[in-house]
């Protein structure tokens, strides 16, 4: 079920209806955009972590020293 709730702040009236076809299409587009954004975010975070790890490796730090820097 895809219900839209609307609260009229002037009258206090609360109404419920089903989403329109256009609203459903927009929602699907938003879901895809979010998935794409999240994938990009996750990749950016992974790349950043890998780059940081590479620097640690160059510095010759121990695992405990790396952990201390990450906290």
């Amino acid at each position, binding site marked *: *079920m*895809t*219900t*839209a*709730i*609307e*609260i*009229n*702040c*002037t*009258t*206090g009236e*609360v109404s*419920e209806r089903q*989403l329109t076809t256009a*609203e459903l299409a927009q*929602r699907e587009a*938003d*879901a895809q*955009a*979010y998935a794409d*954004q*999240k994938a*990009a*975010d*996750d990749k*950016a*975070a*992974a790349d*950043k*972590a890998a780059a*940081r790890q590479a620097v640690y490796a160059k510095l010759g730090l121990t695992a405990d020293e790396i952990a201390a820097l990450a906290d």
Partner: protein
Amino acid sequence: MPNTYTLIASNTVGSGGAASVTFSSIPATYTDLLLNISARSDQSGVNRSFKVQPNATDITAKRLGAEQSPMITYSDSGISLYLPGTGATASTFGNTYTYISNYASSTTYKSLSADSVNENNGTDSGLMLLAGLYSSNTAITSLVCTINAGNFVQYSTFYLYGIKNS
């Protein structure tokens, strides 16, 4: 909470869930608005998202976000905020505060800020700080909260406060 905060309207989602919650016909009698949301998604995964649109329009935003990985920053259109999905700890609800300054102005763009957290008793969780801009001189008379997939679950709550500067 200061006594300048006035509850304009609220809603608790019922047993069927809801894909969107809209506050319409917001009176122009306040200085700022605060939208306080406690919500959870019925979709899989830990971190799910929803958006808040002034006058049903996407805003531009700069976001600072973190999950279990290093913190990242990015720009986007729309306003993606966190809420927990079914992969998060059972019965936990995320918190989101959205503050909109000078929402009734008909001569300026409206800035807003939001902080959003995804509650989860596990290694994966989410935090989002957002600075946004509604690039229109049109007064904000409605706020539309739309989940990107599925529904806001039962007992998700939406509170809209009006704030006067005097």
